């Protein structure tokens, strides 16, 4: 990692972005003989909203799964918080402070919204079995503290009214929000959002955009997201990686990307007006 790469920058709207939080170096991922990702490198800086875009099948989701440990790349290195990350299981990645949502929503359908969001706190629960058994001191204090964090998140995402509702009964848009709440409850250093607006109507998309911006603004959370809705991405993100057929074809601010000829040819030219 060279020195200058680790420096932050200041965004157009005046937010200060910190040093490199995560860096992907020459990542290649194959399924059998098929290359899903070919030699991709990029970084995610502290406090920024980083988007990965590309047409369907470009390898965006695979990339997110590499970051979150669901896929293990055959080649390349993942650097996180200044150290090289060894091959890890997804739950170990989560314990390092990387929370995520899923394109197809992975919630605990049988539990209430509150219980779902509480599971986001599992990694913050330290009390041992004995303490939990007698429900005293550390365990009780911890439960209350965790509940407080969870209630703040619930308030923040405006889902108070469904606190006690079983998730299975919620409409799609709200489920997406609950999933975001669960990820936020973990107070992650890096939040990964896999197509947070997929399948939403215009109004829901606007709500979700506002929540993403507010999360970044209020908690300073670093966010990496995948999205194929170009309009949304360009409005939200500070920097954008563009992928096509598993290769990186562009990387920069939304304006830079918009004017990049390769990107225009591959993607923007066809679907962006």
């Amino acid at each position, binding site marked *: 990692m060279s020195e200058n790469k680790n420096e932050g920058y200041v965004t157009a*709207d*005046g937010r200060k972005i910190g040093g490199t939080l995560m860096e992907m170096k020459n990542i290649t991922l194959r399924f059998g003989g098929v290359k899903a990702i070919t030699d991709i490198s990029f970084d995610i800086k502290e406090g920024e909203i980083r988007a990965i875009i590309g047409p369907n099948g470009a390898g965006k989701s695979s990339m997110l799964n590499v970051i979150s440990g669901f896929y293990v790349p055959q080649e390349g290195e993942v650097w996180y918080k200044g150290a090289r990350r060894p091959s890890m299981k997804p739950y170990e990645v989560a314990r390092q402070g990387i929370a995520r949502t899923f394109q197809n929503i992975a919630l605990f359908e049988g539990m209430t919204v509150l219980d779902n969001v509480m599971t986001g706190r599992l990694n913050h629960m330290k009390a041992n079995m004995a303490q939990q058994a007698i429900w005293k001191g550390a365990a009780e204090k911890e439960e209350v503290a965790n*509940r*407080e964090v969870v*209630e*703040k998140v*619930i*308030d*923040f995402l*405006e889902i*108070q*009214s*469904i*606190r*006690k509702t079983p998730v299975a009964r919620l409409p799609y848009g709200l489920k997406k929000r609950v999933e975001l709440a669960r990820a936020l409850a973990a107070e992650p250093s890096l939040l990964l959002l896999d197509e947070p607006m997929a399948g939403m109507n*215009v*109004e829901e998309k*606007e709500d979700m955009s506002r929540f993403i911006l*507010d999360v970044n*603004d*209020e908690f300073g959370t670093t966010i990496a997201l995948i999205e194929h809705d170009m309009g949304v991405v360009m409005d939200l993100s500070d920097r954008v990686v563009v992928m096509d057929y598993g290769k990186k074809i562009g990387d920069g601010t939304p304006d830079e990307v918009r004017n990049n000829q390769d990107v225009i040819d591959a993607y923007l030219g066809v679907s962006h007006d």
Partner: protein
Amino acid sequence: MAQSSQAAGGLQSIPALLHRNATEFGNRPAYREKEFGIWQSWTWNETKREINNLARGLINLGVNEGDFIAIIGRNRPHFYWSMVAAQSVGAIPVPIYQDSAAEEMAYVLDHCGARFVIAEDQEQVDKVIEVQDRLHQFEHMIYVDPRGMRKYDHTRLHEFSHVQEQGFAARDELTPELNNRKAKLDYSSTCVMLYTSGTTGKPKGVVLSNRNVIESAKNSAEFDHLKIDEEILAYLPMAWVGDFIFSLGQAYWCGFCVNCPESPETMAADLREIGPTYYFAPPRVFETQLTNVMIRMEDASKFKKRLFDKYMAVAKRVGPKILDGKPVGFIDRLQYALGDLFIYGPLKNTLGLSRVRVGYTAGEAIGPEIFEFYRSLGINLKQLYGQTEATVFITVQPDGEVRNDTVGVPAPGVELRIDDSGEVFYRSPGVFEEYYKNPESTASTKDAEGWVATGDAGFIEPDTGHLRIIDRAKDVGKMADGSMFAPKYVENKLKFFPNILEAVLFGNGRDRCMAFINIDMGAVGNWAERNNIAYSSYQELAGHPKVLDAIKAHVEEVNRSVAQDEMLSGCQIHRFLVLHKELDADDGEMTRTRKVRRRIVEEKFQDLIDALYDGKDQIFTTTEVTYEDGRKGSISATLKLIDAAIAPVTTQKVAAE
């Protein structure tokens, strides 16, 4: 009420009442609000501290006596404090509907010349910022929720808690000034200014004095024996006079606790947790609750359903009698007690109404079966008739004299008069001072002797003294043959069907009546689901042949009912259509309080009205719609125009109904 001003005992302003409450019952709860899942509460002592800090903070910011302070937010303690703090510094609070569009807000802010705005959050702040260039007197804005506000330019923007902190820091210098200003307040100083939405024209600023508010609060509290231990849930718009009187006037007069819900969506759950003893809701809320209960019972097991039906029949038979204290047989009482144990009690608990001692509904006519349902459960639901200009109360129903078809007897201190055209007039201590900056309207509404025109047509029943309202006076018209045209009367009958959300009747000056109908998406949608009728939108559901059949049956039933009334039998509906969109305040078709703006609907859908009178079978139409974010679009549809059977006129009298 000759001794009324003495009875107030020098308590001639809300800040004076606050002082009394903090002195006499300082440790009793004044406000509760659910936040982060927990009910936070403030005693009267704490409330006084919060309000005084805010008041000093306002002086610190440069608020002068006579300034207008606009308050935009949902029911939260902070905004009630803001109103009292504004009064304390000699300013006039102007609560504004928080769901107003920026344009509507601009009109009100400009009209009253507000120098200060206290707003809830980023959303409201953004709306004011959007129009602030047009507001010449506007200077500072205070916001309560700091979320998302960090990036804003804070030269004229202040956080609520910071203003309070500054007020606290400057307590030594500013307290004398604050006390000085408070001392100047008396019965004639302005308490609040409320903008009435009105079904036509621009909103008017109704100026209410301390006399209006405190006398009305006092009289009504005595009428219903309200005490210090009442609990109410404040959830109706703060800009509405009712909330001002219930949650501020009566609360400060009696010293009871005002509970604020966590969010509008959690209302039902919060209601259950608080269990108010004194409760107000417009008919729409009671109707929705009832519809939900019925839907749930449809899905319940057969056993539960049978039990429910059996005991509801018992309740219907004896419940209202027990409530009115009339004699009821022992067996019936026993059955009712059993029903209360198994059905009514749990049901009331679920609805959050188990502790309600006094419940009111007003604003619109309530369906008889809805009204009866609640009363049969043992909930003392009553009707009142009022308006902003009267500081709410014109008539109220006393305990034991509650009926669905009247709005009660004159409230304490109110005189009633019916003029030759049938319009209702009143005079009371609550009669408003004036419409702000609008002497013509003031003069045309309130005469020199203090009589105020309600704009409603009605009559007083000779034997009971109860007032009955027929319709808006200006809406009552004549059919081509000279018979009476009372659209509201017929529309209300239609709206009593759960399937029908809104109805608009046309026929003034014509030979026949026609109607537009909006179906109730909740009720009809649920029915469709149970009958395996697939639909993807309101429009599709509204056009479904089976839905149209059901509505037609409703219309014909209404016709039969209207036909029984000789005077109004001309108002039967000959043809109708089900609209392809819901009438919406965003499109200007309704007021923010959800009353239909007849004239606008008439203009906008002229093509549909013509088609109804032309006798066509169907018509293609395109309508402009406004989305929630203000963008415009259009929807088009082919609507079926349907004939309804007309019932023969029977010769029963109106009174027999």
